[in-house]
C-alpha cells in the first residue's frame, strides 16, 4: 500500500526516474514517512486508550523492596514498556534512590528505557520484520540487565551528587485518572499529539539520512567497508559514531533499514542502533545533574563495550 503510494507520488506526479539516485532516495523518503507516521499515530492512540503507559511513580512502587534479581528484572521490563522523555531521567533517578532501590537496578532501568519501548518495537516489526526485532529486544534487555550489574561493581554511590541523598519525597496521592470512554479518548489523543510533536523531528531526520544512504551510497562501497564480517573494526566504529549522534529508538529505524538494505552486517547495524538510542551527549548532560563525571564515564564505557560485544556476537553467529 505504502509502496504503491510512493510509486504514484514519486514516479508519476514528480516524474522521477526509478533508476536514478534521486528517484530512489525520494521514494524511500516518501514511503517511510507515510508508513512510520501512520503507524506512530495508531500505536500511540491504542496504547493511550488502554492506558498502558505506566507512570514513573508506579514503576517505583513495583520495584522498591523486592529482592535484587527480581527488582532488576522488573526494572528492565518496565523500562522497556515505558517511553519516558529524557527530561524525566533526573526526577526518576532521585525517586529511585529515595525509595532505597539499589543504584545498579536504577542503571538497568536507565539503560532499558530509551533503547526499547513499545512504539519502537511495533515500528521495528513493521519495517524490519519480527526476527530482527526479536534480536534487538533480546540484546537490549540483556545489555540493560548485565550493564546494571557491572555498574554496581564500580560502587557508583560515590559518584552520586550529594544533594540527591538529602531529598525527601512527599507521599501525596496522585489524582485518579478519568476512565470513562470520553476520558480515555481525550487522554489517548493528547498522547498522540504530545508524543508525535516530540518525535517527528527525529523520525524525519532518520528517514532523510536513511533515504540518502539508500539512494546515494553505492552497494560495492558498503560491502567492502562495512559488510565484511571479518572486518572487526566496523563494530567499534559504528558504536563510536553513534555516541555523539542522537536520535530516539524510533528515529534510528529508517537508518537501520537503509543500512541493512545495502548489506551492512546485522551485528554492526544493531550496535549502531543501540549506541544512537541509549548513549548520547544530551542524555549524559541531563544525567550530569545527579551523577558526577567519573560515574558518567563508567556508564558510557560499560555501555559502549556492551554494544560492541552485541555487534561482534551477532556478526559471528549470523
Amino acid at each position, binding site marked *: 500500500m505504502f509502496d504503491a503510494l510512493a510509486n504514484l507520488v514519486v514516479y508519476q506526479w514528480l516524474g522521477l526516474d526509478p533508476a536514478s539516485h534521486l528517484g530512489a532516495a525520494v521514494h524511500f523518503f516518501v514511503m517511510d514517512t507515510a508508513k512510520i507516521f501512520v503507524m506512530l499515530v495508531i500505536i500511540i492512540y491504542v496504547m493511550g486508550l488502554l492506558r498502558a503507559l505506566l*507512570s*514513573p*511513580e508506579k514503576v*517505583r512502587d513495583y520495584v522498591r523492596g523486592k529482592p535484587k534479581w527480581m527488582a532488576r528484572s522488573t526494572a528492565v521490563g518496565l523500562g522497556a514498556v515505558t517511553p*519516558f*522523555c529524557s*527530561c*524525566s531521567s*533526573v*526526577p*526518576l533517578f*532521585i*525517586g529511585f534512590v*529515595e525509595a532505597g532501590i539499589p543504584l545498579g537496578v536504577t542503571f538497568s532501568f536507565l539503560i532499558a528505557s530509551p533503547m526499547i519501548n513499545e512504539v519502537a518495537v511495533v515500528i521495528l516489526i513493521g519495517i524490519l520484520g519480527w526476527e530482527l526485532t526479536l534480536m534487538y529486544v533480546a540484546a537490549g534487555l540483556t545489555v540493560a540487565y548485565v550493564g546494571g550489574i557491572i555498574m554496581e561493581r564500580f560502587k557508583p554511590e560515590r559518584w552520586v551528587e550529594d*544533594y540527591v541523598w*538529602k*531529598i*525527601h*519525597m*512527599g*507521599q*501525596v*496521592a*496522585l*489524582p485518579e485518572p478519568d476512565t470513562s470512554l470520553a476520558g480515555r479518548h*481525550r487522554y489517548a489523543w*493528547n*498522547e498522540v499529539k*504530545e508524543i508525535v510533536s516530540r518525535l517527528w523531528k527525529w523520525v524525519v531526520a532518520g528517514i532523510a539520512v536513511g533515504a540518502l544512504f539508500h539512494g546515494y551510497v553505492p552497494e560495492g562501497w558498503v560491502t567492502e567497508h562495512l559488510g565484511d564480517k571479518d572486518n572487526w573494526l566496523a563494530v567499534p566504529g559504528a558504536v563510536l559514531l553513534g555516541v555523539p549522534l542522537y536520535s530516539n529508538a524510533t528515529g534510528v529505524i529508517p537508518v537501520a533499514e537503509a543500512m541493512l538494505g545495502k548489506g551492512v552486517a546485522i551485528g554492526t547495524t544493531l550496535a549502531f542502533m543501540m549506541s544512537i538510542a541509549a548513549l548520547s551527549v544530551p542524555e549524559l548532560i541531563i544525567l550530569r*545533574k545527579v551523577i558526577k563525571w567519573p560515574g558518567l564515564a563508567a556508564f558510557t564505557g560499560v555501555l559502549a563495550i556492551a554494544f560492541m560485544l552485541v555487534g561482534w556476537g551477532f556478526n559471528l553467529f549470523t
Partner: protein
Amino acid sequence: MKNIKVLGSGCRNCQTTYDLIRKAAEEKGVPVQLEKIEDIGQIMSYGVMSTPGVVIDGKVVHAGGVPDRKTIDAWL
C-alpha cells in the same frame, strides 16, 4: 484566590503547561497566583516524579504531561 504551582525542571512541556494555564485564567478572568517550581527537591516533595505536574492550593491535581484545555478550565 487560587494558588497554582507548575512543577517542572524547565523542560519544554513544563513551559507549555505554565503558558496554557496563564492564558486560560486570563481568558476566563479568574484571578490566580501562578508559580513555577523548578527546584528538583521541592518538586519531589510533592511526590511527583513525572513532570510537568500541577498543584492547586497545595493539592497535586495532575502529573506527567501537558494537561488539556478542558481539564484546566475545570480547575479554574
